[in-house]
């Protein structure tokens, strides 16, 4: 091998459990990436908070009083289109069935680099 007399050099061997399995399972590597980005992420994704969010996914709230008033006004004048914050529900900016805001969240182009 050319590094000196064979048999003399005795390296320390640290008991490293990861040494045995050099490749970290891809899922764990991905998990580490996610936790690095979002340190406050809860431990259990299947927990009730997560599921509760899932049960309510996509629900949009509206105010029936404002909605009916806006509908009445619409007959007479052109309403301005919904303001910059589409979730803000007040007065003239209530969505009507005809112009409900886009429900599909705009999917971010995949950032799958590395």
């Amino acid at each position, binding site marked *: 091998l050319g590094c000196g007399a064979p048999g003399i050099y005795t390296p320390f061997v640290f008991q490293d459990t990861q040494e045995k399995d050099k490749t970290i399972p891809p*899922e764990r590597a991905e*998990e580490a990436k996610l936790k690095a980005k979002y340190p406050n992420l809860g431990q259990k*994704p*299947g927990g*009730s908070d997560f*599921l509760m969010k899932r*049960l309510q996914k996509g629900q949009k709230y509206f105010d029936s009083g404002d909605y009916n008033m806006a509908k009445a006004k619409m007959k007479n004048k052109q309403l301005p289109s919904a303001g910059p914050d589409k979730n803000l529900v007040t007065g003239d900016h209530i969505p009507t069935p005809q112009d409900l805001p886009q429900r599909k969240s705009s999917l971010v182009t*995949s950032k799958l680099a590395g």
Partner: protein
Amino acid sequence: NKTQSHSRGEYNVYSTFQSHEPEFDYLKSLEIEEKINKIRWLPQKNAAQFLLSTNDKTIKLWKISERDKRPEGYNLKEEDGRYRDPTTVTTLRVPVFRPMDLMVEASPRRIFANAHTYHINSISINSDYETYLSADDLRINLWHLEITDRSFNIVDIKPANMEELTEVITAAEFHPNSCSTFVYSSSKGTIRLCDMRASALCDRHSKLFEEPEDPSNRSFFSEIISSISDVKFSHSGRYMMTRDYLSVKIWDLNMENRPVETYQVHEYLRSKLCSLYENDCIFDKFECCWNGSDIVMTGSYNNFFRMFDRNTKRDITLEASRENNKPRTVLKPRKVCASGKRKKDEISVDSLDFNKKILHTAWHPKENIIAVATTNNLYIFQDKMN
């Protein structure tokens, strides 16, 4: 306007109708989307077609019928429908049916409403052809097709304290032959088989299908990707197929502790789960379908869809796109390169378009014709041997 030409396999739109409208739930101040979640055909009993369609809250039974002749020659009515003055009628004639341009009419026959607190994810017609089930995140109801003001709750997994909620129902289906048997899948990757003869409320399963998990592989994503997005019985009813985020599993109803076969749909995505979680793609709900009991099909990203042959163990990846496939040419198999050197004609994982997802596919019940839905288009492919 049916202008089909069977030998050339061209298709035309048969009928278009608005099934559901957007609604507002005033009591809860919620908007109810008109988006259709599921459609199921009823077995055909006469000339008309019947189907059930559902949005988040309401199921509707539609009758689709053809009309290709109309009566002409009334005595008291003009052809345009206006009534004639009886004093001007001097002769009598017998009205006759004359051919007319084909008209396809869709009319709502039943509306099954107000039975679901949560979003309906599945409907399934029973083999008795009289009843059907509808499932939302926490409950499953049984309906009679003729009765709209009553339904029976047959599964309720809502905990008394919502803080204890650990899983939700993701799909449900009746057995194709046994009218008292149905299955439902969960967000934790389990399937429960229930028998309605056992009790009125089927909260206790007759069988629980679950593959034991390797604890060393457990990660934050494990439960999310194990969530079953679709469950389908084979035509014989001996097997059932489940689709989770990365794979398709075939289960033998006689064996609960593991699937008999597992097929990887897009295993290369396992090392991209972090990004897929961030862009919400990890929650995409893919469906799957059978060709009899031998071939299964499911969709993926980049407008790819996959087929697995259970007998030969061969699989193929095809693409539904107009740019890459001229009409009436044989589809070229596609291949994704997970890592390393990309061969010519392969596409690398990082080039996949995750906005182009194929969630819905269907196989013709009798012939080798498939329907594949991309975001904006419906593709119909048929076997070149046809």
